[in-house]
């Protein structure tokens, strides 16, 4: 109601340049007060430990100027496009084009991904970046089970990533177990932790669940930092063994893969191997998710996301349903963690901060919460975008934060808004009035 009346006053008043200027002037004034001390004055500890300060009028003036100019542009755009609340319809031609694109985009992308090591064989940087992107695609797909399908907001996903990474690192460095034994173990351990956390807290809903998972993620990180005898504390675990191709090491030795195949050794072999390894793991995640969606448990997840109370009324055990979603997501997080450990060869608690959780969550949300293709594209955009902003290291989180806010405002359903339930009634059925008459249920 209020939103509507607000909209009307806005559009009816939104004519004329004086209004725009008044608005921009007001915004600039607010900006001036906001930035006056935080930007206009810079403090720094002097050589004797005393704080000194100096004014920065130029920065302050330019920021206020940017706000003024930006407000004018936004107001003009708003008038030009029309009221912001209006839904713009997609023209049918474009729509069919999009669906055509949607049908062939995924296979084309998959084929391209398979060929990446062939095309970019000599470019180590691109291969490393591709591995990084695929790691986040896998994490995104894993978290997608929890957030996108079951609708449970998990802010501590990085905890399971950490459990997987540390499981592999500690088992491999202490007992010398191979990657292929540790990988399933890492997944199982992460799933176990998922159940352990999930069992008590999954009665909570929405925001409370989010904050508890956040607290859990922080607890895991703090324990990793402080339990020095086991995890090495802030120094991390160094010297994690590299993965082998089912026992054949990818090294420049006589029993290495290159020697066995009779080809010349190159360090790129290992990178290519890692690339296909994470691709296989990510595709496994994707395949399992797609299959699970067609099983009763997957249907239950989606039903849970749509309406929890209705779910319970229909006799779905919400605790079990949530737990399986949590455990499945955690397991994939654990796999990704083990891969991360073997790729890096060194892990420390610094890799498992809340920022990582937020980044993976942003990928899932940007990808449209539930769309597998959307998550993959979002991971590519996010990680690629991060690489583009690498030069602006200090401003990276600033840009990331604004991106999260703006995406929520403009496309709260993500870039590929796909949240339709997998099954729904094809046609509405007419119910005879005899059946719904009072007293007959």
């Amino acid at each position, binding site marked *: 109601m209020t939103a509507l009346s607000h909209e009307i006053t806005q559009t009816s008043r939104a004519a004329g340049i004086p209004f725009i200027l008044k608005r921009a002037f007001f915004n600039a004034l607010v900006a001036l007060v*906001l930035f006056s001390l*935080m930007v206009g004055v810079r403090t720094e500890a002097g050589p004797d430990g005393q704080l000194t300060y100096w004014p920065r009028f130029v920065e302050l003036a330019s920021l206020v100027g940017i706000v003024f100019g930006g407000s004018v542009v936004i107001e003009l755009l708003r008038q030009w496009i029309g009221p912001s609340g209006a839904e713009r319809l997609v023209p049918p031609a474009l729509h069919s084009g999009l669906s055509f694109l949607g049908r062939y985009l995924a296979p084309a992308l998959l084929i391209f991904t398979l060929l990446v090591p062939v095309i970019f064989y000599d470019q180590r940087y691109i291969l490393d970046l591709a591995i990084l992107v695929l790691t986040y695609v896998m994490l995104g797909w894993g978290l997608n089970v929890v957030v996108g399908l079951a609708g449970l907001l998990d802010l501590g996903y990085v905890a399971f990533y950490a459990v997987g990474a540390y499981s592999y690192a500690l088992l491999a460095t202490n007992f010398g177990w191979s990657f292929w034994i540790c990988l399933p173990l890492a997944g199982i351990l992460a799933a176990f932790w998922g159940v352990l956390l999930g069992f008590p807290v999954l009665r909570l809903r929405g925001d409370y669940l989010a904050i508890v998972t956040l607290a859990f993620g922080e607890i895991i990180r703090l324990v990793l930092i402080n339990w020095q005898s086991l995890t090495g504390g802030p120094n991390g675990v160094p010297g994690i063994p590299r993965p082998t191709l089912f026992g054949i090491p990818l090294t420049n030795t006589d029993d290495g893969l290159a020697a066995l195949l009779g080809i010349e050794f190159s360090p790129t072999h290992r990178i290519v191997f890692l690339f296909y390894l994470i691709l296989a793991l990510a595709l496994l995640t994707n395949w399992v998710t797609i299959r699970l969606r067609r099983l009763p448990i997957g249907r239950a997840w989606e039903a849970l996301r749509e309406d929890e109370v209705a779910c319970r009324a229909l006799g779905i055990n919400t605790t079990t349903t949530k737990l399986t979603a949590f455990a499945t997501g955690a397991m994939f997080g654990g796999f990704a963690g083990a891969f991360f450990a073997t790729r890096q060869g060194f892990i420390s608690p610094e890799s498992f901060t809340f920022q990582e959780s937020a980044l993976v969550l942003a990928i899932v949300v940007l990808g449209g919460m539930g769309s597998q293709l959307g998550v993959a594209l979002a991971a590519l955009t996010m990680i690629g975008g991060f690489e583009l902003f690498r030069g602006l290291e200090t401003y990276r989180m600033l840009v990331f934060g*604004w991106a999260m806010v703006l995406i929520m405002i403009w496309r709260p359903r993500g870039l590929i808004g796909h949240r339709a339930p997998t099954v729904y009634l094809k046609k509405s059925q007419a119910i005879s009035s005899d059946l719904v008459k009072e007293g007959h249920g």
Partner: protein
Amino acid sequence: MDYFAQQLINGLVLGSIYGLIAIGYTMVYGIVGMINFAHGDIFMIGGFIALISFLILVSFGLTAVPLILLVVLLVSMVITALYGWTIERIAYRPLRHSFRLAPMLSAIGMSFVLTNYSQVAQGARVKPIPPVITGGYTLHEGAEGFAVQLSNMQIIVVLATIVLLTLFTWLVSRTRLGRDMRACEQDQTMAALLGVDVDRTISMTFVIGAGLAAVAGMMYLLYYGQVDFNMGFVAGIKAFTAAVLGGIGSLPGAVLGGLAIGLIETFWSAYFSVEYKDVAAFSILIIVLIFMPTGLLGRPEVEKV
């Protein structure tokens, strides 16, 4: 016993600061039903603005400490409140009728923005100031030479909390604005139909919450003698824990929860281990939410279809 008494005092002071931040969480959650994730960073911004305005006033040659503190308090409350207002306007208001996770995610983004903004604007290093309010009382001289100290600063923090809590309880229960807030908390559409300006009321809630966070930030600066850009995250989660522990939506509950968290954290550090004090605070959050989701003074939430 003396050691215990000293920790009790320290815990109450820390708890008062948490309580002041927690009021902002509890008021916003009560009305809009969202966790204002950026609130901890608002507290951090408040601390920074207090620091900067303090430096400027001192360099102008002002020496009267009460006058300086009063001006610093007003400046940081006003500017921080404006931050709260702007953030609500930009990041939360457009999402009020969006799906339920959207405001939360937007708030997380805003929290990153604020943290990084103050890092870029003021540098990453810790900013120390010399102690402003010194002196205090020795309450009890122990046999082993351990004395229980109560500093003037600690008295001020606790007094400020009590005064502000009384003031805002009065504001919510007796004034027009408070009545509007409670109306919006119950039913926004109905309140709007009865002539309550919902947008303005929600804005005012954010403004008041941010103002109180600024007070907490200033107290933190004076009590610990330093601020840094990263202090908002952990303080924010602990204050949220306090709000939940006290029963979300309840003002006295928030302060009570803050005191409880402050005491638990202090005693945990004093008798067990300093390293795991945050783990203790977060574990309490989890335990409270599992066994007592309505908190100490909260009302049970009714599930509706």
